[in-house]
């Protein structure tokens, strides 16, 4: 059953590409600043965070300059939050497709997860510039970064399958998503390092899959930063669990989408 749907996804890979391509194209077609938004968003958030949390509140950043410290979490976070809000609505915003054409419905949240990547790459460009500015030389651990990016995509896909499918039946989900994202920002070590929390809270934090992914991504960029394997391992496991739960719920409800959307 499972392999069958996976092979079907593979057969529809071109459509996945075209749906992602459409999302990207449409996003920038009428935006005056175009792709610059992918830089503006993390850049300005970084400035605000640096001012309020880094300077005024004095949040520690483990010896890394605070702007860089927050930016290297903000780039993946921006990808995650923007994509999640899109992917969570991807089914209801494509209801015209769902009621008229057959294709594996999971392509829609998957296309959103994929379609967020160009923005992520542009944001990463900003990150590279900042690292040059602060003269941070990454080590071999940088090669692990794509793994965390992949984890991020898997997590977005898993969560958005769950949310998008629920969204078809319960339109409240649409309003819940921005709220969820807002909460998620604060329970993830973006503004603060994971070590900022007392030890026992760190274990609870690890249950937030995004915590390990973002701390892991951050650790890849700075050679001297210790990778918290416990945190990363727990998050990876939770990410997979979310993927499986999301996929199961999606499969279970998928058949009724066209009837109730």
């Amino acid at each position, binding site marked *: 059953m499972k392999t069958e749907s996976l092979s*079907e996804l593979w*057969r529809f890979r*071109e*459509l996945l590409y*075209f749906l992602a391509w*459409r999302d990207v*194209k*449409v996003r920038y*077609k*009428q935006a005056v600043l175009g792709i610059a938004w992918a830089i503006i968003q993390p850049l300005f958030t970084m400035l605000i965070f640096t001012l309020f949390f880094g300077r005024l509140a004095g949040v520690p950043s483990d010896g890394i300059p605070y702007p860089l410290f927050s930016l290297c979490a903000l780039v993946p976070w921006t990808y995650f939050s923007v994509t999640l809000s899109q992917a969570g609505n991807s089914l209801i915003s494509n209801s*015209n*497709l*769902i*009621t*008229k*054409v*057959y*294709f594996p419905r999971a392509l829609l949240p998957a296309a959103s997860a994929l379609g967020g990547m160009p923005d992520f790459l542009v944001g990463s460009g900003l990150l590279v510039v900042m690292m040059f500015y602060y003269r941070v030389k990454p080590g071999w651990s940088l090669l692990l970064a794509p793994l965390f990016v992949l984890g991020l995509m898997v997590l977005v896909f898993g969560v958005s399958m769950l949310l998008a499918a*629920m969204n078809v*039946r*319960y*339109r*409240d*989900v649409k309003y*819940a998503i921005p709220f969820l994202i807002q909460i998620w920002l604060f329970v993830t070590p973006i503004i603060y390092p994971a070590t900022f929390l007392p030890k026992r809270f760190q274990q609870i934090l690890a249950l937030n899959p995004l915590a390990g992914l973002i701390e892991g991504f951050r650790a890849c960029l700075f050679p001297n930063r210790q990778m918290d394997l416990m945190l990363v391992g727990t998050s990876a496991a939770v990410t997979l669990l979310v993927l499986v739960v999301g996929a199961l719920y999606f499969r279970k409800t998928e*058949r*009724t989408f*066209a*009837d*109730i959307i």
Partner: protein
Amino acid sequence: MPISSDEESCTAGAARKSPMKDAIIVEDLSKKYELGALSHETMLRERLVNFFLGSFRKRAAKNEIIWALKNVSFRIGEREVVGIIGRNGAGKSTLLKVLSKITYPTSGHVHVRGRVASLLEVGTGFHEELTGRENIYLNGSILGMKRKEVEAKLDAILNFAGLERFVDTPIKRYSSGMRLRLGFAVAAHLDPDILIIDEILAVGDAGFQKKCLNAMEDLRSGGRTVLFVSHNMAAVENLCTRAIWIDDGQIRQDGPAHEVIEAYMSTFASSQQATMDLTQVESRRGSGEIRYTGFEILDKNGQPQPVVRSGDSVMFRFHFRAKESVRFPCFGLRLFTELGTLITETGTWHHGIGIPEVFAGDGYIDLEINSLNLLPARYLLTLNISGEKAGIEGPHMYDGLDHCAKIEMEGANIYMSGKTLDSHYGIVFFPQRWRLPVVRTKQSALLTNDSHVFDSASSETELAK
């Protein structure tokens, strides 16, 4: 979009024995919709409230259940072209959606063999902001084309749509007609084994409809299995060998297209009877020595014909009863539109027929019409019997019935073009043919209706430069 070539699992043995393979097998298919399900619990809040209060109060109302399809079974052979007809809401579209895997049956099975493309809409997934070219890629891909396929056919698609000049214009600047052309052009270049089409010929201007029908003809000759839902009976009759009539979620009739269409059309005519009793008409004029008693519409074989379609050969039979013998009566009729415009008047007098005497008793007189050239609408008949009566100067009225009978004309494929002309095109039509001697046709290959009685050529022509 392609659906996995579903090799029949359990029925494979039986199928192999039959000479013609089935492309589609539908077994005992039912689809239930719960109308209430939509309004109930659409908000998570209500779900939660219901969850907590569940033990205190029962669910407010039972959901209303509608069976959009009930126990539908049929097989469609490879390369068969089948029309699906029926009233709105009869379940046709649901059937197509189930066959296209868009929605799932409540019970029953569907086996589909081969690559399926379903066109339930023209231009599915078009995006306003994207250009014509981009939308061709997107739409093609949504309909199951490979990227390379689209690339190879891009020029042909643009040419078919006649939109080469606008290829890089966002389609939000397109007119609705241009969008439609683009959408159909992509659809016409699909290359599936099985094509499922829902009522897309009902839109677009006449010239483009013609193009679409020709494209459909090509599809048929290309050896594809086609399933085609339409309200355009002429198109169904033209394109399909077989028709399935769905009524109230069930198959009412399945057989040769023209038989099924005839049966289907006859249900519309319940307001019009082939036989009309005229004895009870109250407001009638005339002295009454001889009166009409009935009016029948018969086909050329003398059988009652409840449905009259444009161009049909019919016979009007007028029954009368004479109380006494009447000398030189003239039977006449006038045909009006429903708005009261006189279309034509005719009668035995106009034909110079003198009827010396009608004896007391019952009788009838027939009017044969080779081709009733009325376009679809409701028409009214006024009947009269007049004559010269001894001792009275001028014509004498024996019987006069104003608008006593109505004739409902149904549309037909009168020009053999696949188009049903309706009342928008006027009241009457004439036997005719178009000739275009100095005109070079743009796509001469598409203009292929030669052997018909009423020739018509497409309007898609260009003057030679």
